[in-house]
């Protein structure tokens, strides 16, 4: 799926950077950065309601191409500056995390295969 298509499906607003030409292959929706870090995927878009600088640092580690902030949240200038330093493209959508993910998924953007061997989908007991 192209970034342009993502922008359209999410009634999005581009906050920073230029839409990447390369196809987006996978997506992750979460407010927990440690969950995002556990299942890295190729050419990923991250959808999140978390608007702090750690989102950008996490994205740097995972080579995330595009970040979408949900529920109309616009991050502060400090967070956008962190994204700019790392050449990460940022958009915002009025939809909730649930609905934004649903729109992309039902239009053919898969969750993607984790580059980590077969761990996603296992049961995890909380302590």
């Amino acid at each position: 799926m192209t970034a342009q298509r993502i922008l359209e499906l999410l009634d999005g607003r581009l906050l920073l950077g230029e839409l990447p030409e390369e196809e987006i292959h996978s997506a992750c929706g979460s407010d927990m950065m440690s969950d995002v870090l556990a299942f890295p995927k190729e050419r990923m878009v991250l959808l999140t309601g978390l608007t702090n600088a750690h989102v950008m640092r996490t994205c740097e580690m995972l080579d995330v191409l595009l970040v979408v902030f949900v529920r109309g949240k616009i991050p502060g200038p400090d967070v956008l500056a962190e994204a700019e330093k790392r050449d990460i493209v940022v958009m915002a959508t009025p939809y909730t995390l649930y609905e934004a993910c649903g729109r992309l998924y039902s239009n053919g953007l898969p969750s993607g295969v984790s580059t980590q061997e077969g761990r996603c989908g296992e049961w995890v007991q909380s302590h």
Partner: protein
Amino acid sequence: MGAITLKESYPVEAGDFSTAGEASGKIKRVLKKLGIDSAIVRRVAVAAYEVELNLVIHSMGGHMDLIVEPDYLQLNVHDRGPGIPDVDLAMREGYSTASDDVRTMGFGAGMGLPNMRRNANDFSIRSTVGVGTDIEMGFKL
């Protein structure tokens, strides 16, 4: 053992959330510059970021040492305490003692240590309460 191509040490301050992740960012850029395969760079970067955040959140500070040899990379991490009382429990997915404050910042899922072990080819952890924690991670290049 091959010749050492690079050895660097990065200090990590306890509790300093504003700079948390900077050491890992530096490590990632250094490895990229060395021309190491991008999938391996990412695995090292994720493990480094997880361990750096643990030092910021859970420890009293410490340092991360990066040693790059032609066919092996080591990330050795040492902190000054407080140590982990039950390492087996801490290694389980979902176990976390992180505060609600830390959770609202997007961390504290109890995924960090298992994620380090998963990303590294070799992983060892030793911890003594009141002394500190040592984590050694090795990556085949």
